[in-house]
């Protein structure tokens, strides 16, 4: 799990059964003490694999949306909730957005001139077991999490995804790995659960349509060799075929695009949700 704090933006990404939505109210209150007010909210997640393990309000997307609707101030009046399908009932992408258009655009300090930025959220399961084994710590290595994490970053080649990035990594005991990357005002983050039978890895980053995202994507796929993968791409604005680049980038690596869904969110841009599975050998 990761937390990113910018001058006017906070991103929290947590796994498992954490009660993420309960962070909204305290964050609004603390920001208010600083003289800041909420003007945009975006909540996204994949499908719950164990919905009955999820505490309220995460018991269903309907409950989550009700909680969000009740918690967010009314000035965020451009709202939409959407479940974006794939061909598999266990893979859909849930998105809730709420925006106050009077303050949305000017405060985006990270919008680079003439660059269209996008966020890519990747979820990967059925990782290659041999590659996943690299995310197990040698037994009783006695190292602190961060130095073991650094070794894992180099051992797996994660440091080569963006050689420019400052990396903060952590290896859990006996297994599991998290990393945050910082490249200027762009973040990237990776979380890995390597146990065989329910292995999982996520990769998320901000990038520009002018950058070679295909190159990054290929590196990520080679590090984990997932059996299944979903990519959710979010950008402000409409009309963009970055998702085509992603599908063609991973095709040579044996990952075939199985589904595509696009949806638009008022004052919040476009989301494309694609699922991929490894071509059977």
């Amino acid at each position, binding site marked *: *799990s*990761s*937390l*990113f*704090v*910018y*001058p*006017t933006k906070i991103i929290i*990404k*947590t*796994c498992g*059964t*954490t*009660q*993420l*939505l309960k*962070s909204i109210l*305290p*964050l609004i209150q*603390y920001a208010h003490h*600083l*003289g*800041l*007010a*909420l*003007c945009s*909210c*975006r*909540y*996204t*997640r*994949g*499908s*719950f*694999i*164990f919905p009955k393990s999820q505490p309220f309000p995460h018991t269903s997307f309907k409950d989550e949306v009700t909680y969000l609707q009740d918690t967010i101030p009314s000035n965020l009046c451009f709202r939409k909730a959407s479940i974006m399908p794939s061909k598999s009932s266990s893979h859909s992408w849930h998105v809730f957005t709420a925006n106050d258009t009077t303050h*949305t655009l000017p*405060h985006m300090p990270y919008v680079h001139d003439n660059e269209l930025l996008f966020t890519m*959220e990747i*979820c990967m399961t059925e990782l290659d077991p041999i590659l996943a084994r690299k995310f197990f710590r040698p037994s009783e290595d006695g190292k602190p*999490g961060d130095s073991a*994490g650094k070794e894992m970053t180099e051992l797996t080649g994660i440091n080569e995804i963006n050689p420019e990035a*400052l990396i*903060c*990594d*952590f290896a859990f005991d006996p297994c599991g790995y*998290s*990393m*945050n990357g*910082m490249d*200027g005002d762009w*973040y990237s*983050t990776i979380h890995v*659960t390597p*146990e065989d*039978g*329910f*292995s*999982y890895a*996520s990769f998320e980053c901000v990038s520009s349509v002018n950058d070679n995202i295909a190159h990054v994507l290929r590196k990520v796929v080679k590090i984990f060799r997932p059996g299944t993968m979903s990519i959710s791409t979010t950008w402000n604005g409409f009309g963009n075929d970055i998702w085509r680049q992603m599908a063609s980038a991973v095709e040579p690596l044996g990952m075939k695009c199985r589904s595509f869904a696009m949806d638009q969110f008022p004052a919040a841009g476009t989301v494309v949700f694609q699922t991929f599975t490894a071509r059977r050998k």
Partner: protein
Amino acid sequence: MAVSGFEGFEKRLELHFFGDDPAIFPLGLRKLEFESLEQVLEAVQCTVVSAVGNSYFDAYVLSE
């Protein structure tokens, strides 16, 4: 609790704020006390295990 220990895909929340008082910038939300962040994360049932920052933002690795 989930049988296999892996509890599924992540959840992600992104909040944007605005403010008219120039005095709170350039740091803005980065002025939040670490204790305040910890209280927010307590509501979420997470703790900070590692942290780094640069001139643009702060990044925290969390653990449930």
